[in-house]
C-alpha cells in the first residue's frame, strides 16, 4: 500500500441510488465490484461532509461549557486570560477554547484506538496474511462491519482491507488534529462538529481492531453463550506462578497463552489481566482470568501476587516500573507506545534477557515481538515465583496501626482525593487500633494513590486501605461472560420491531472506565434494575467487569442470572473497549436489517433514524479517558445520548437539550413534510448525573423517541414514572411533555396522570413519521 496521501475516487457515481462499479481508495485499490447495495451519498467523509447533520444536532443540543482553566497556554503568545468574554492573542474566545480542548481529547482518543487497530492488524497480517478473511459470526452475521460500511461505503472482506481503511482514518485524524493549531478553527460549533467527526472516525477504528482480532484470533463470534470466565482478585491460584497482563492490545497476552499450551505448561501458570487486555485474553482463551478494572492495578501489584508484569498499551499506570520494582516483579513492556524507559531487547537472545531479569540486573525489558515477550514472561515467572514468595509491600494490620501513629491529621490526603474520601478520619481511627474505617473506604477508592504522593509524612493511605481489606480482596470471586463480539443479524430481526415501536423500553449500554464517584456497586445495581425491567443491557470494557462484581443471595452474578442474548432482559458483554462499535453496530443494523434502510455510506439518514427511533442510551459511569471522550462522541453523531457519572463533568462541556424551549423539539413528518412538535425526545445528547438515583430516572427518559407507538411510549413511561416516584415520591414534573395521546398513559396510573395533565393544560400531540432531514420527506404538503 502506498504511503502517498489517499484519495477517494468514485467511479461512475452519479446519484446515491446508482450502483457504483468500483470504489477506489488510494492507488489502484478498488473495493467491492459487486455489491448490490447502492452507494450512499457520503463515502469516506471528510471533516465537513457531515457538518450539516452536526449543526442540526448542535442547534438542539447546545454545548454548556465548564472551563477547567481560565487561561490558554497552548502557544507562546500566551498565557492568555480568557475570562468573561476576553479573547486570546490569537482571537480565540473561551467557548472555542473549551471545544478545542474537547477536540484535542477526542483526537487523542481516536488516535489511540487507531494506533491500536493498526498495530493489531499489522501483526495479524504478518501472522495470517492479508487475505485472511473477516468472519465475525459466520452465517449469523451478514453485516460484519456495520460502522465501517456506514461510514466508508466499503465492505471489508480481508485483513488487508482493514489495513487500507486505516489509512483513510489516519488522514482524517491528522486533519482534525491540525484544526487545534493556533489560528485555525475559530468557531466553537465548528470545533464541536469536528469533535463529532473524531468520534465517528474512532468508531471505525475500534470496529476494525475488534473484527480483526475476532476473525484472526478466533474469539467468540457473536456468541450469546460465550463461556463464563473468572473475575476478581481472589480467583488467582497463588500456588502457581502468576503473570499479570495490563493494557488493551492482546497479541502479547495471546502469545503467552499459546506458549503455555505449546510447552505443556497450560494450567500450571496463571495468566490474569487488568483492563481490556484481560477481556481480550479471555476471549482468546477462557482459561485466562480477569482481575478487574484499571483501579485494581496498584492493589494487585502491591499485594505481590504477580510474579511478572507484562504491559502492552493504554491504561497502564505510568509508574508501573517503580511499582513493579517495589515487589521485585520484572516488567516486560511490549509496545513501542509505552516503553517505560526500558532497554530494547527485541533482538536479543531470550536466555540472556531471562538471565538479566532473574538476577535483577535489569528491572525489565522492552520486547516488541509478542512471541519472544511471551517466552521470556513465562520462563521468568516459573523461575522467579519460588524466589519472590509473593513479596508484597502492603503492610499487615499491625504495621498499618503503627504507621498511622505518624499521621498529623493535616488533611492533605483528603484535599487531593478525587473520590473525596475522608482518609484523615480513617487514619485517626487506625491510630487508635481500629482499621475498620480504612476498610470501609476500599469499595470507594479508585486506587489512584494521589493521597500517598501528597502526604507530607510519607504515609501510604492507599496501601493501608488495601491492607485493612485484604480479606475482602482475596474473596473477590466472580463470573463474567467472555466478550461475545457482534450482535447477530437474527437477534436484530427479533428485537428490531419491539425496539423501534418502543415495546422493548430501551437498550442501555454500560461502557467505559472505572472512575466511579461512589465505587462500582452503583453501576452493578443499575444493570440489575434495568435487566429486571427487561431493557437490553449491553456492556463493554471496565464497566462490563464492574457489573459482574456483585452477587445475589445465592452467590450468583448478573451474568449467571441473565442470558447473554441481545433481547429484553439480556445482559450482553460485547467485550473490550474496541468492542463498543458492536453496540453502535446493533443500532445501525436495526435501521438496516429491520427497517431496510440502505446503510452503505449513508451516515446522515441512519443517524437520523437512530436519533428518532432507536431507544438506546450509553452510560459511561466512570468515564475518565480521552478514549472515552472519543467513544462518546461517536455515539452522539449517531444520535445516541450518553450519560456520564459525576467525574464526567470534568469533560468540561455537556450537550444539553432544553425541554422548556418548545421550538427546539419540532421534527418533520416524513409523510407530509409538516413540522410537528414531539416533546424533548431524547432530551440530552451528553449529560452528567450527580447520583445513581438521577441516572435511574434519566435512563428511561433518554430512551424515549418520537417514533414510539402509543403502546411503546406507555411502557417507557411506566418505567420513567415508576422510578421517579420511587425515588422522589411524586410524578415527574415534566411528564406532560412526554405524553402525546391518552393512550400513552400507563393504564394503572391513568387517573393520577390525567389529573396532572389537566393541571398542566396538556393537549394531545401528533405522532409523526419523524425525521430532521427535509430530503426524506416523501410528499410535501
Amino acid at each position, binding site marked *: 500500500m502506498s504511503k502517498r496521501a489517499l484519495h477517494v475516487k468514485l467511479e461512475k457515481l452519479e446519484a446515491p441510488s446508482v450502483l457504483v462499479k468500483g470504489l477506489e481508495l488510494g492507488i489502484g485499490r478498488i473495493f467491492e465490484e459487486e455489491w448490490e447495495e447502492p452507494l450512499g451519498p457520503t463515502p469516506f467523509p471528510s471533516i465537513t461532509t457531515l457538518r450539516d447533520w452536526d449543526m442540526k444536532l448542535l442547534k438542539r443540543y447546545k454545548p454548556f461549557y465548564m*472551563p477547567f482553566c481560565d487561561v490558554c497556554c497552548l502557544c507562546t503568545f500566551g498565557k492568555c486570560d480568557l475570562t468573561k468574554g476576553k479573547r486570546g492573542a490569537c482571537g480565540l474566545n473561551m467557548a472555542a477554547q473549551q471545544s478545542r480542548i474537547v477536540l484535542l481529547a477526542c483526537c487523542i482518543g481516536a488516535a489511540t484506538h487507531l494506533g491500536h487497530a493498526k498495530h493489531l492488524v499489522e501483526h495479524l497480517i504478518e501472522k495470517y496474511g492479508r487475505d485472511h478473511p473477516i468472519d465475525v459470526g459466520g452465517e449469523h452475521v451478514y453485516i460484519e462491519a456495520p460502522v465501517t460500511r456506514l461510514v466508508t461505503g466499503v465492505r471489508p472482506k480481508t485483513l488487508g482491507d482493514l489495513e487500507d481503511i486505516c489509512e483513510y482514518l489516519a488522514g482524517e485524524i491528522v486533519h482534525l488534529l491540525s484544526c487545534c493549531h493556533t489560528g485555525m478553527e475559530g468557531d466553537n460549533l465548528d470545533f464541536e462538529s469536528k469533535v463529532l467527526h473524531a468520534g465517528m472516525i474512532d468508531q471505525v477504528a475500534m470496529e476494525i481492531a475488534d473484527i480483526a482480532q475476532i476473525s484472526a484470533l478466533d474469539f467468540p463470534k457473536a456468541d450469546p453463550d460465550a463461556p463464563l470466565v473468572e473475575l476478581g482478585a481472589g480467583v488467582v491460584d497463588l500456588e502457581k506462578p502468576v503473570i499479570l497482563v495490563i493494557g488493551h492490545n492482546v497479541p502479547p497476552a495471546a502469545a503467552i497463552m499459546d506458549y503455555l499450551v505449546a510447552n505443556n505448561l497450560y494450567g500450571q501458570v496463571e495468566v490474569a489481566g487488568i483492563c481490556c487486555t484481560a477481556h481480550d485474553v479471555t476471549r482468546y482463551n477462557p482459561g485466562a482470568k480477569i482481575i478487574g478494572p484499571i483501579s485494581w492495578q496498584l492493589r494487585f501489584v502491591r499485594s505481590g501476587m504477580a510474579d511478572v508484569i507484562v504491559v502492552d498499551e493504554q491504561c497502564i499506570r505510568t509508574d508501573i516500573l517503580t511499582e513493579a520494582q517495589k515487589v521485585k516483579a520484572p516488567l516486560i513492556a511490549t509496545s513501542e507506545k509505552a516503553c517505560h524507559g526500558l532497554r530494547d531487547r527485541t533482538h536479543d537472545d531470550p536466555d540472556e534477557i531471562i538471565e538479566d531479569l532473574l538476577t535483577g540486573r535489569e528491572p525489565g525489558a522492552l520486547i516488541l515481538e509478542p512471541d519472544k515477550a511471551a517466552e521470556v514472561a513465562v520462563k521468568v515467572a516459573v523461575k522467579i515465583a519460588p524466589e519472590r514468595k509473593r513479596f508484597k509491600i502492603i503492610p499487615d494490620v499491625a504495621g498499618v496501626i503503627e504507621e498511622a501513629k505518624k499521621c498529623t491529621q493535616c488533611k492533605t490526603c483528603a484535599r487531593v482525593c478525587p473520590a473525596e474520601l475522608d482518609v484523615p478520619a480513617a487514619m485517626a481511627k487506625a491510630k487508635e487500633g481500629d482499621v475498620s474505617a480504612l476498610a470501609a473506604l476500599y469499595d470507594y477508592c479508585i486506587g489512584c494513590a494521589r493521597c500517598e504522593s501528597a502526604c507530607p509524612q510519607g504515609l501510604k493511605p492507599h496501601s493501608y486501605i488495601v491492607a485493612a481489606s485484604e480479606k475482602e480482596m482475596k474473596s473477590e470471586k466472580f463470573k463474567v461472560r467472555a466478550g461475545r463480539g457482534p450482535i447477530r443479524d437474527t437477534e436484530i430481526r427479533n428485537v428490531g420491531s419491539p425496539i423501534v415501536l418502543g415495546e422493548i423500553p430501551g437498550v442501555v449500554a454500560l461502557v467505559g472506565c472505572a472512575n466511579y464517584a461512589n465505587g462500582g456497586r452503583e453501576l452493578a445495581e443499575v444493570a440489575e434494575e434495568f435487566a429486571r425491567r427487561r431493557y437490553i443491557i449491553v456492556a463493554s470494557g471496565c464497566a462490563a467487569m464492574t457489573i459482574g462484581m456483585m452477587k445475589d443471595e445465592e452467590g450468583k452474578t448478573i451474568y449467571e442470572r441473565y442470558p447473554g442474548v441481545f433481547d429484553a432482559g439480556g445482559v450482553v458483554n460485547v467485550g473490550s473497549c474496541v468492542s463498543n462499535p458492536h453496540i453502535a453496530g446493533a443500532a445501525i443494523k436495526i435501521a438496516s436489517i429491520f427497517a431496510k434502510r440502505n446503510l452503505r455510506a449513508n451516515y446522515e439518514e441512519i443517524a437520523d433514524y437512530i436519533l428518532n427511533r432507536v431507544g438506546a442510551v450509553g452510560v459511561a459511569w466512570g468515564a475518565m479517558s480521552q478514549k472515552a471522550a472519543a467513544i462518546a462522541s461517536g455515539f452522539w453523531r449517531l444520535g445516541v445520548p450518553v450519560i456520564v457519572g459525576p467525574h464526567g463533568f470534568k469533560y468540561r462541556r455537556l450537550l444539553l437539550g*432544553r425541554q422548556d424551549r418548545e421550538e427546539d423539539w419540532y421534527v418533520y413528518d416524513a409523510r407530509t413534510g409538516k413540522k410537528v412538535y414531539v416533546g424533548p425526545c431524547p432530551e440530552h445528547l451528553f449529560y*452528567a448525573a450527580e*447520583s445513581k*438515583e*438521577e441516572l435511574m430516572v434519566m435512563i428511561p427518559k433518554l430512551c424515549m423517541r418520537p417514533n414510539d407507538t402509543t403502546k411503546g411510549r406507555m411502557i417507557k413511561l411506566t418505567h420513567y414514572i415508576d422510578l421517579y416516584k420511587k425515588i422522589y415520591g411524586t410524578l415527574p414534573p415534566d411528564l406532560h411533555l412526554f405524553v402525546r395521546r391518552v393512550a400513552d398513559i400507563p393504564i394503572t396510573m391513568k387517573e393520577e396522570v390525567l389529573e396532572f395533565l389537566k393541571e398542566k393544560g396538556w393537549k394531545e400531540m401528533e405522532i409523526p413519521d419523524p425525521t430532521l432531514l427535509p430530503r426524506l420527506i416523501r410528499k410535501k404538503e
Partner: protein
Amino acid sequence: MSLTRSWMIAEIPGPTRANVITKPEIVAALIRRHKRPLLVVGSKITTDIGGESMADYVIRLAKAANIPVLASLPALKVFREKGFEPAAAMPLADIGARLVDPSWQGVDGKGPHDLVLILGFRYYEQWLLLSGVKHFSDTMLVSLDYRYQPHANWSFLNISLEEWKKNLKAIIEKFGG
C-alpha cells in the same frame, strides 16, 4: 499556605478568584442588594453538623430571607424527606444550562436571577458549575459552602463545619430567622 487556596489543591482557576466572605454581614448585604436571588442546592446538604444537617440551615435561610430554592435532583429527595418543597428542581446539568441563558426567566418565570447562592455539591461539581456560569453570564455568584470555591465572586475560606454553622446562623438571624 495562601489563605485563598482551593480545597482540592490542584483545582487552580486562573487570574480571577473569589473574594473571601470574612463575616456573615457580607452575605446578608449581598442578598439585600439584589432583587432576584436564588439558592442552588446539591446532594451533599445531607452533611451532618452536630445532629442537624446542612439542609436544615438551607431551609431556614430560604424561609427567613424569602429566597426560592432550586434543588438538584438528589437535593430534591433530601428536601422532600424533610417536608420542604423547593421552588423548582432539576438536574445539575440543566441548572448550569439555564443559568448561562440570559433569556431564562428564572424558577418563577418572572425574570433572570441576579444573585445565585450555591452550596452542597461535590467540590469539583460546584467548582465546574461556578466556572461555567462565571464565564458565560453576569450573575453574581456566592458560594455558601465551607470550602473555598475560587470561581464564585464570593466564598468562605476552607472553614470547619462548626464555623460554617455559626456563619449561617448569623446570616439567618439577619433576616429575623
